[in-house]
C-alpha cells in the first residue's frame, strides 16, 4: 500500500482545518445568508478532500487506473462550485447598479467565452491531458469573470464591501494560480508532476489563510442600496457627452496637424 507524500497529507490536513475554521466563522457571523454559493463551495472542498484521501491513500498518485476518473470528477464539481461562487461575488459587487450590471454581464460572458474557447482550441489535445485543458479553460473563465467585475467596479467607482472584495480576490487568485499551474504542467508533464500537486496545495492554503485572516472579526460594513435615476437622465446626457468628446478629439487632431480651427 503506497502512502501519499507527507507534504500533501499535511497540506490537505491544514486546508481541512482552515476550511472548517472559515465555515464556523461564516455560520457564526451569519454570512451564509449573503454568500450561500461561497459557503457551498467551501463545503464542496471539504468533501473533495475526504474523497481524495479515500481514493488516493491506498494507491498513491502514481497509480492512474484506480480512482483517477473519480478524483477528476470531484475536481470538476469543485470548479463548477467555484464558478457559482464567483458569479455570486460579482452580483454582490455590481448587482445593485442595474444598468452597469446588465452591461458587465454581457461583456464578461463574452470575454469569458473567448478565453474558454481559445484555451480549449489551443490547449493540448491529447486524451490524457484533455481534463487538464478543460480545467484550464474553466479556471480562465472564472478568473476573467472575477477580475472583469473588479475592473468594472473600479472604472465606475462602485464601493465594494470588504467581504465581497476579499472573497473575490481569493477566488480570482486561486483561479489564476491553477491556470498557470496547469499551463506549466501541460507543457512539462513528466518533470512537473510532483510540483503541480504542491503548487496547487500551497495556493489553496494561502487563499484560505487570506480569508481566515479577513474574517477574524465580524463583518459590519455593507454597501447601501443606491438611489437610481430615471433612464431619461442617461439618455439625455450621455450622447451629448460623447458628441462633445468626439468634437474635442477632432479639435485635438487638428492641433496636431497645425490646421486652423473651424469657426
Amino acid at each position, binding site marked *: 500500500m503506497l502512502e501519499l507524500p507527507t507534504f500533501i497529507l499535511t497540506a490537505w490536513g491544514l486546508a481541512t482545518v482552515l476550511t472548517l475554521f472559515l465555515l464556523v466563522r461564516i455560520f457564526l457571523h451569519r454570512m451564509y445568508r449573503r454568500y450561500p454559493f461561497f459557503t457551498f463551495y467551501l463545503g464542496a472542498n471539504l468533501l473533495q478532500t475526504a474523497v481524495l484521501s479515500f481514493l488516493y491513500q491506498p494507491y498513491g498518485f502514481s497509480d492512474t487506473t484506480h480512482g483517477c476518473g473519480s478524483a477528476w470528477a470531484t475536481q470538476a464539481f469543485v470548479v463548477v462550485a467555484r464558478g457559482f461562487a464567483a458569479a455570486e461575488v460579482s452580483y454582490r459587487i455590481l448587482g445593485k447598479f442595474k444598468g452597469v450590471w446588465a452591461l458587465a454581464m454581457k461583456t464578461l460572458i463574452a470575454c469569458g467565452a473567448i478565453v474558454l474557447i481559445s484555451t480549449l482550441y489551443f490547449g*493540448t489535445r491529447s486524451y490524457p491531458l484533455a481534463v487538464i485543458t478543460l480545467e484550464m479553460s474553466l479556471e480562465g473563465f472564472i478568473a476573467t469573470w472575477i477580475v472583469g467585475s473588479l475592473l468594472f467596479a473600479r472604472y*465606475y467607482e*462602485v464601493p465594494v464591501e470588504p467581504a465581497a472584495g476579499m472573497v473575490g480576490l481569493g477566488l480570482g487568485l486561486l483561479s489564476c494560480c491553477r491556470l498557470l499551474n496547469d499551463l506549466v504542467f501541460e507543457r512539462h508533464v513528466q518533470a512537473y508532476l510532483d510540483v503541480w500537486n504542491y503548487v496547487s496545495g500551497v495556493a489553496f492554503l494561502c487563499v484560505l489563510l487570506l480569508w481566515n485572516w479577513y474574517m477574524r472579526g465580524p463583518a459590519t460594513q455593507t454597501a447601501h442600496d443606491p438611489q437610481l435615476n430615471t433612464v431619461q437622465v*442617461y439618455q439625455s446626457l450621455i450622447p451629448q457627452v460623447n458628441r462633445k468628446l468626439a468634437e474635442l478629439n477632432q479639435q485635438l487632431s487638428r*492641433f*496636431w496637424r497645425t490646421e486652423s480651427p473651424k469657426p
Partner: protein
Amino acid sequence: MAHGVAKAVNSLFFFVAVAAGLALAGMSFWALRGASQRKGHGHCLGALDSVPRDLDYMSQIRQSLDPADLEFAKAKGGRHLESRLRRERRQVSLLYLAAIRRDFEQSLRVARVIAVLSPEVSGSQEYERIRQSMMFRWRFQMIKGRLLIGNMPQPQLVALWQMASSMAVQMEQTMAKLGERAALAAELALQSEK
C-alpha cells in the same frame, strides 16, 4: 513542417496564456485598491453645480498667448525680457492645459456617475466614451509635449478649453431641466392624489 507550425503555435499560446494569467492576477490587486473607501455617488453630481471658473480669466490668457505681445516686449525691453516672458507664458499655458484636463476629467467622472446610477446603460455609448477619452488623453499628451518644446499654435489652446468647458456647462443645463421636470412630475402626482 505542419508539426513545426503546431509546435510554434503551442509555444506562442503558452507564453500568451502565462502572460494573461499573470496580468489577471496583478489586475485583481490593482482593481481592488481603495475599493472599500469609495464613497457613494450622490455627492459627485454636485460637481456640476460649479461651472469651471477658468472662464473668468480667459481674456488675460488670450492676451498672454498673443505672439504680437511678445514682439512688442522684445521691441521695448530687448531679447532678455522677451525670452523671460516667453518662458513664463509657457508655464501659464501649461497650467491652463492642466485646467482643461481637470475640467475634462470632471465631466467624464460625472458621466460615469450618471451611467452607474441609471437603470439602463447603452454598451455602445459607454464604449464610445471610453474610446474618445483614451484618444483625448493620448492627443493631450502629444500637445503638451509640443507646448513644452515651444511649438504650439497658441489660440487653439483657448478653443480647446472652450470645448472642454462647454461640455460641463451643457451637462449642468440639462441636469437643471431634468430636475425641473422631475419636480413638476412630483407636484402633479401629489395633486392627483389629493
